[in-house]
């Protein structure tokens, strides 16, 4: 065979070595208390997020409020996702691929402020969370890397 495949033209513009996608994705999973909205989560949570998006319309909000379970049954959602939505278990919904900008449509539908809804994902009450924010927010100290925290605790033992 002399065919060496398609000819690749000269490179133009700035070049850099391709990032290693596996290392890139692994790092995104290394942040404590954080679910980065990766392609894998976006794929898994597609219908959760599109359901949430439907609440942008007043008539859908009214139908949802009237019978939440029936409204959810119109969507191709797992029982687990339906349960988490009914329970407003936002950390669980993040695990199932929900994204906070979509889930915020549900916050609004419930009449919850963004900050109050966000506080339900932490181990604090809303007043405690609000005070933390007024006092400068949560420090990144000790919150940067699961692996680093693990290594530090093994060193300490």
């Amino acid at each position, binding site marked *: 065979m002399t065919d060496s495949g398609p000819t690749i033209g000269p490179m133009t513009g700035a070049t850099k070595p391709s990032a290693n996608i596996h290392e890139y994705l692994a790092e995104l999973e290394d942040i404590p208390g954080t679910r*980065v909205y990766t392609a894998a989560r976006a794929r898994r949570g597609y219908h959760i997020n599109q359901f949430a998006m439907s609440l942008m319309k007043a008539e859908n909000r009214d139908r949802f409020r009237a019978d939440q379970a029936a409204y959810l049954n119109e969507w191709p959602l797992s029982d687990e996702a339906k349960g988490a939505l009914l329970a407003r278990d936002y950390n669980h919904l993040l695990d199932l691929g929900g994204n906070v900008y979509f889930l915020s449509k549900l916050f609004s539908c419930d009449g919850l402020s963004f900050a109050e809804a966000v506080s339900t994902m932490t181990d604090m009450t809303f007043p405690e969370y609000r005070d933390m924010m007024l006092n*400068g*927010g*949560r420090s990144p100290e000790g919150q940067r890397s699961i692996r680093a925290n693990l290594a530090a605790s093994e060193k300490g033992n």
Partner: protein
Amino acid sequence: MARITAGVGSSHVPLLGVAVDQGKTRDDYFGPIFAGYDWTREWEQAEKPDVIVLVYNDHASAFDMKIVPTFAIGCGERYKPADEGWGPRQVPDVEGHADLAWHIAQSLILDDFDMTIINEMDVDHGLTVPLSMMFGTPDAWPAKIVPLAVNVVTYPVPSGNRCWALGEAIARAVASFPEDLNVQIWGTGGMSHQLQGPRAGLLNAEWDNRFLDMLIGETDAARWIPHIEYLRETGSEGIEMVMWLIMRGALGAKTRLLHRHYHIPCSNTAIGHIVLEPAE
């Protein structure tokens, strides 16, 4: 010829729009935030930009998960404020500059940036809050807007390097537009904030201020910051700061600082604001 005369960076927290719309901008909570924009509002009145290329992200308002464009440019004549679930903000419609927008879109595509073109959409707080911060509450916005929407939600989002290079290409595109126009570029979003998970509420004033430092002068260090650093240091939504790099890239090799402001907190978020001009 058209030229980019200045760059503005600003957070676009929706609560700031609520403060403007409810007349609370001088109360104890919002007063210190808005005071940091007084200089800019006066400066904008003197500058009178014709057009603003406004870099922002849509927050599940115009776009849902059906289509996720990485870089999208608004080439329409007019955009209405989006209904984000509690009725649209009572702010003026946003007037586009279709001639310049189409010129930029074509130039960018020829310059190897494969843009998505938008003819119709509503614009959410990501775009209208910065307008309120910089222009207050006029009956009509005093400049035409070219919206440039960036995906900073679904990973991978564009790299800082790519955003910077897009800014450089926007500056070339504007410079080749024949009409004499005073064009500003605004980069919005950030600064540190995390709106999800047990780590929600993370803020990092030290890192944010280092980032502001990196936008001034000749350094291009900020374009090389990897995504993981934004995520670890500034929270999952701090990644919006890559949009500021489009603004910075458009200002050329060197910038001069005109104004700077930083305040913690606004709701869940650190407020950052900077005004820069290109320097020789």
